[in-house]
């Protein structure tokens, strides 16, 4: 229990009190212990409070308090000449947020998040479908772990791998060269918006890395949704004369949609808030996460950084409301 006393002060006193109560009960023998348990049995509300207090204080004070302080920063502004934060309530920072250049950043990030979500959906669906419909029990466990492991393992390390794969002399170009496909890459990099001087410095490269990183988040909810589609539905559809493709389009896909939307919450939100990938991949165009990182760091403009984080929060709130309409929460 003493551990709780590390860090924030509020939960610690409660933690120590619980710890003290426990050790007293243990030291003075069973009668005291019994008296204590009887006391808590008669006062269930007190017991409940004791259980809830440390966690609620931590998350309520430390976390929600922090979110509140961040939002208040977004209504303060940076004095340009002194570089100090002026703590006057106002909308100056928000006027700066909605400047032409910053709107571009927001649109660019949202477009990338949407593209990544679609990319993940296209790659995830066949794998999820195979897992839920055809894989043997053993194979299913293997595939489940194969999808789950990258989800838990270091995201930075996996991004680092792509830096090495997409490098100029790297493995991807070597393989494509052996297959005689390198002119295709050159042509792809020449395409205006998505191209660039190299695979690393282009939105194609960035898109690939994002899809790779968030793919497991898309596979698992789709698989869970497909798992719940009864086989009899497919049989009924076939009995009524539907060809497999029609069955897929009219029966399987609509039932898998909540899972797809649930997965898209992750792929969309994670792309919106990322700053590591735009640091190493893509062109000079900024992304929301990178802008937050630069504004709070080298630029020293905490108010603008705070205002920028309000954007993904607002987008995700709208996204979640729509997702709930589509039944995605039941699929989580």
């Amino acid at each position, binding site marked *: 229990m003493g551990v709780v006393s590390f860090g924030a002060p509020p939960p610690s006193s409660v933690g120590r009190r619980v710890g003290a109560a426990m050790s007293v009960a243990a030291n003075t023998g069973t009668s005291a212990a019994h008296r204590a348990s009887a006391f808590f049995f008669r006062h269930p509300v007190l017991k409940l409070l004791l259980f809830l207090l440390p966690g609620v204080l931590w998350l309520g004070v430390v976390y929600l308090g922090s979110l509140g302080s961040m939002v208040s920063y977004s209504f303060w502004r940076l004095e340009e000449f002194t570089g100090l934060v002026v703590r006057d309530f106002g909308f100056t920072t928000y006027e700066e947020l909605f400047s032409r250049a910053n709107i571009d950043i927001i649109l660019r990030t949202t477009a990338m998040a949407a593209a990544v979500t679609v990319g993940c959906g296209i790659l995830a669906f*066949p794998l999820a479908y195979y897992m839920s419909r055809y894989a043997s029990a053993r194979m299913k466990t293997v595939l489940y772990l194969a999808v789950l*492991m990258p989800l838990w393992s270091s995201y930075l390390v996996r991004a680092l791998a792509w830096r090495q794969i997409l490098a100029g*002399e790297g*493995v991807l170009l070597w393989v494509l060269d052996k297959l005689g496909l390198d002119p295709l890459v050159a042509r792809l990099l020449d395409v205006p918006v998505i191209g660039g001087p190299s695979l690393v410095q282009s939105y194609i490269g960035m898109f690939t890395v994002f899809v790779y990183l968030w793919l497991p988040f898309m596979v698992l909810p789709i698989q869970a949704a497909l798992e719940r589609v009864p086989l009899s539905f497919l049989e009924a559809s076939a009995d009524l004369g539907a060809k497999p493709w029609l069955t897929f389009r009219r029966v399987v896909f609509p039932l898998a949609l909540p899972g797809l939307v649930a997965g898209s919450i992750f792929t969309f939100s994670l792309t919106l808030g990322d700053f590591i990938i735009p640091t190493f991949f893509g062109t000079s165009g900024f992304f929301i996460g990178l802008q937050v990182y630069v504004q709070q760091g080298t630029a020293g403009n905490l108010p603008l950084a705070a205002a920028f984080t309000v954007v993904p929060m607002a987008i995700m709130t709208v996204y979640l409301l729509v997702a709930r309409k589509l039944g995605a929460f039941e699929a989580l």
Partner: protein
Amino acid sequence: MSAGMQRAGLGLKLVTGAVVAFLYVPLAIIFLYAFTTQSAGFRFPPPGLTTEWFGIAFRNPEIWEALRLSLAVAGVATLVALALGSLLAAAVARTRFFGREAISFIVILPIALPGIVTGLALRSSFSLLGVPFSMWTLAIAHATFCVVIVYNNVLARLRRSSPSIVEASADLGASGLQTFRYVILPNLATALLAGAILAFALSFDEIIVTTFTAGQQRTLPIWIFNSLFRPRQRPVTNVVAMLVIAMTFIPIMIAQILTRDPATSRSRPPR
């Protein structure tokens, strides 16, 4: 249903295999480049293979310092998450009260919102309160998003076990402490262990919230992030990356086995 539909088509099998390969080939690349003789680039195939980078990494005090900090932060964050997460789970699982749904929501919020939001929120409140950045600010930040992991694991276990075992224990004369020691704890042990392992792994390789809540401190992920800007001795980064993969993969595998739900791992129903 026609017999042909019960077996996957070749196309679907190939796509499935390709997607799984897509997930794992990059990790193999990390391993390969830890052995390349080229110190500044990523030429493929590597011009030669060597194990010298392991020795160089091993003798680098920066890496040991970063590893020590990462372990300390993850350790403290895990302990806090264990205490807070299991208490909250116990309260939510066994009692109905006003605001019960709000608990589940607030627990998941730090991980549901993008990392920059959680990171910047904590950073702004630390700077507002004048708290200097240290290992403790990192531990507070990590604990905040690790609570949900323990909470979910313990809650799932409590929902699967019957509340009557606690009543039975009390009827047989056990005190609350004895019931906890001999009934509740053995029942929860593997869920707690799995939750702790996952929370530890999550904290150990977290980078986004970490960047915002660290001052001069460098955890292992921050060390890797910084080393990406250095053109020399690239393979040393890969050696450290291999270490990070090993430190997360093996424990997570164990956590998965510990929490395998007998209901989901059963074989498919007969068709």
